């Protein structure tokens, strides 16, 4: 078992011939992900790396290869359209890596995704990895190792940092999911917590939040009410000033709302072990797993 992606993942890469798409398609293939198709309009009929068939449209790729998961590396201006296309073609799980998708576009994308019963992860996210099975996105495979800890994060490199700490301490991961740092995202903490709670191969959960919004607070309530597995959490941005967007479009303290202190308190109240720094993940997790 695994969460969102795994050995049954049949991946189509949207934007496979682009700079980022081609680089990461190769990385995913090397990791062992079943990359069954690529899509670049106008390049239908070509083969990527001599093996992966390229199509003009996602619908064609699904018809020809049975792709069930899509990863999007197309530029911001076309990313929302790429999500619509993947969902419309019947793709069940769409992971949008692209950073810079206009948020107003996401307000139109999300109802479409929901109506079709699809899952969107991202945009502006590093994707997901189920170590030993499939890597979809840009999380470096080398820092992961199979195991029984699920990880969900709004961040990219901070996720790597924590995964790396776990792997060095020989704590393997069931699935690591980067949900993205944008204000409107397809999959939030609660979606991931629910999936990990239901996953028989996950024993504990690490949750990496940051300032801005109230997703972490709601996630804490969800943990309190519905999660029986141990959860360890972190909030980035304890020293961030209010009113400034800290890189991620969603990482902004509005007025006095969305602060790290508020979120950490919510974690504590929900029984989540709070990391003060990334290095705390191993001792806290070890303590909870005893």
């Amino acid at each position, binding site marked *: 078992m695994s969460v969102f992606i795994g050995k049954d993942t049949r991946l189509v890469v949207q934007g496979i011939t682009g700079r980022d798409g081609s680089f990461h398609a190769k990385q995913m293939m090397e990791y062992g992900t079943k990359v069954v198709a690529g899509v670049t309009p106008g390049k239908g009929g070509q083969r990527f790396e001599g093996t992966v068939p390229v199509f003009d449209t996602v619908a064609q790729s699904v018809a020809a290869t049975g792709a069930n998961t899509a990863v999007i590396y197309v530029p911001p201006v076309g990313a929302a359209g790429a999500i619509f296309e993947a969902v419309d073609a019947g793709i069940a799980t769409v992971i949008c890596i692209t950073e810079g998708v*206009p*948020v*107003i576009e996401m307000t139109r994308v999300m109802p479409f995704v929901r109506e079709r019963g699809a899952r969107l992860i991202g945009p502006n996210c590093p994707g997901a990895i189920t170590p030993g099975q499939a890597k979809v996105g*840009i999380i470096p495979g080398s*820092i992961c190792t199979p195991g029984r800890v699920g990880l969900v994060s709004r961040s990219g*490199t901070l996720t790597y940092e924590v995964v790396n700490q776990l792997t060095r301490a020989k704590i393997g991961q069931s699935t690591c999911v980067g949900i993205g740092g944008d204000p409107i995202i397809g999959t939030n903490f609660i979606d991931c917590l629910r999936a990990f709670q239901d996953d028989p191969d996950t024993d504990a959960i690490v949750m990496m939040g940051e300032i801005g919004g109230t997703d972490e607070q709601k996630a804490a309530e969800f943990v309190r009410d519905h999660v029986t597995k141990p959860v360890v959490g972190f909030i980035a941005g304890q*020293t961030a000033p209010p009113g400034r967007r800290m*890189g991620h479009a969603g990482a902004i303290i509005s007025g006095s709302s969305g602060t790290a202190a508020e979120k950490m308190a919510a974690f504590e109240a929900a029984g989540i072990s709070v990391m003060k*720094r990334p290095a705390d993940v191993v001792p806290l997790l070890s303590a909870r797993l005893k």
Partner: protein
Amino acid sequence: MNLHEYQARALLKAAGVPVPDGDVASTPGEAEALSRRIGGTVVVKAQVHAGGRGKAGGVKLAKTPAETADIASHILGMQIKGLTVHKVLVVPAADIATEAYVGLILDRDSQRPVFMVSPAGGIDIEEVAAKTPDKILRLPVDPRFGLLPHQAMALAFFLYTDIKQVRAAADIMQRLYKVFVENGASLAEINPLVTTPAGQVLALDAKISIDDNELDRRPDLAELRDETAEDPAEVAARRAGLTFIKLDGNVGCVVNGAGLAMATMDLVKYYGGEPANFLDIGGSSNPDKVVNALKIITADPSVRAILFNIFGGITRTDDVANGIKTALAQFPVKVPIVVRLTGTNEKEAVKILQGIGMTALSDMDEAVSKVVALVGEAA
């Protein structure tokens, strides 16, 4: 990106929202000419990205063109919350019967544009929300259907009873929604929306923030950015493709990734230091970005030491090492640099740094505690 009042006004006006006459002036002479054209008493309003302009003396009445020139010459150049006033808006002093608040935000929770309106206008809406929440009507808009006519009417009925004013306000709601969606705004406020004694409904002041992600596809909006209202270092960083935010500390930080950058700042604080900045070099591997990052950080005189924290994924750590090497060859860096890097091409990176006599640490805590210690020694 925040727009100035006069820019927000222009967007609303173009969409057919009634706003008072008036225009923007950069000199007392221009302000005087505007005052003459408008006639009667005018209001001179400082155009800065800061609340509380009135309390700070940035909004004044002027009865004559001469007085307008005089007041404009005081306001232009004035500092409000650290920002210099470069422009003033000159508008007729409106007779006001009532003041209401109309706001539209992109709401993260509902993933929709959400209207917030209140008959208690002209004041801080967060205060109204906290003290008298029943004076605010909140209405999420389904973007698939847009603002439906009856929803616009419901918002307007919450503000007014006179049916003419209700219809006028409903029309303004529709136009505001259009401005919001068509310009990819994250916030659009009319505060106050006023009625005049004659019964007219007017947008007296407006505030619009544009989603930064919108600017790439909308050069017309990107052009509205007022870089004179920003920290010059932040402007330089943005031009170099970096995300930089100036803070009050003395430990300069260069990090890849926003989350890791925040966590690095937090760790500096954890070890007793104070970060001098947030700086995200992003995901790509361009050595030039590192050079520019170092230029920007070293230009800050309060920086006592510099910390690199790079977790190589897409970012190749050897590119970062090469960037450091290039920068140090181009200009002197007088404060100590602590480099932590791990991940993609780590071995090559370590070699490059060793070649210029630097060591690279691989542990984040070790690097941060070291840089904090160095700053402590320097003090």
